[in-house]
């Protein structure tokens, strides 16, 4: 009996750990006044039916889950403590930081986990006292998929190019 209780407790602990990193933030704050939604694989698959380009469909089907949480025009409810906890857990779960930009009080971070030559998870996080954006993408994105997406993005955004680096540090 004791062994059973320990086993159940261990299971709970493991499931708690599964809610680590971005999922932890998402589940804690999803009911706050903002936008929060999660697209499961089925929804993504259905969405892919409506795409004209075959390559786009293939690319999209490699995505298993998308999580988006946005707080805009309201005070960012995510506490500094939760952010620190998120970063700690992220590094423990092999989510590597790719890019970090801090401009004043605005932080932008892109993190990713790579395994067997494909991207398994990408997290884009922007937070400032007035704004919070979390986008998580889970799946199995290969480099040629990313190349395809980049090509397409480049074509589409050539007219209206938005720089990744904030204007304040760009050359005049």
């Amino acid at each position, binding site marked *: 009996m004791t062994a059973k209780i320990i086993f159940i407790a261990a299971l709970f602990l493991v499931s708690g750990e599964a809610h680590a990193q971005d999922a932890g933030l998402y589940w804690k704050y999803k009911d706050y006044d903002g936008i929060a939604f999660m697209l499961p694989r089925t929804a993504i698959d259905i969405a892919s039916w409506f795409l004209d380009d075959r390559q786009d469909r293939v690319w999209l089907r490699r995505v298993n889950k998308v999580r988006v949480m946005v707080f805009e025009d309201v005070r960012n409810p995510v506490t500094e403590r939760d952010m620190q906890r998120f970063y700690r857990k992220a590094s423990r779960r092999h989510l590597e930081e790719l890019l970090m*930009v801090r401009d004043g009080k605005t932080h932008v971070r892109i993190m990713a986990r790579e395994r067997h030559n494909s991207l398994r998870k990408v997290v884009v996080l922007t937070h400032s006292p007035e704004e919070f954006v979390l986008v998580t993408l889970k799946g199995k994105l290969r480099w040629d998929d990313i190349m395809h997406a980049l090509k397409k993005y480049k074509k589409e955004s050539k007219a209206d190019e938005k720089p990744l680096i904030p204007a304040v540090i760009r050359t005049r």
Partner: protein
Amino acid sequence: MQKLLMMLPLFLLAAGSATAQDDGITRFFNQYVDDERFTVVFVSPKMFQMVAKIETDDEDWNKFRDVVKDLGGLRVLTSDSITNGVAMYKDALSKVPMGARNIKQRLDYLAMYKDALSKVPVGEYSELLTVRDGQENVRIWIKDSGNVINELLLLVGSPDEFTLLSFTGKIDLDKISSLSKTLDIKGADQLDKIKQKN
């Protein structure tokens, strides 16, 4: 055996001092990383590795890829809203370990350890170029081992502007100067001076 045991702390001390030297600029960077007057950019080695994996037929992208494929990381600390840019520049400059001079001081100070120290490969920055134009100061340092440049450090300081830019990895000076336009970061345009010098 006793001699060996006595040598061990000396080696450890020397190795520690080498690490401390290397970390001078990192410490300086970390000191201001949360300062809101500064804008901070950090691109991790992983990002460069990932970029290098993406092959396209786009010429611009391939040029960029060719430059960054050997890079190990990029840190930028910049500000245009400070009033003590020159003082900060001097402070950062004092953190650059000028290998030979520092080793000498350390050897003088710890003469008894000089044999142990001489056996430790001490990291060394050598000055690539210095430009002083009015109150604007630009210095570029490199850290190399053999024919390979492992780190490039750019410091720009004027009364109202300060930029610290550090590239790590395997650096090709000709190629890195071409990044000045791609990066589009204040101060990075000074990288052009490397090409002019060459």
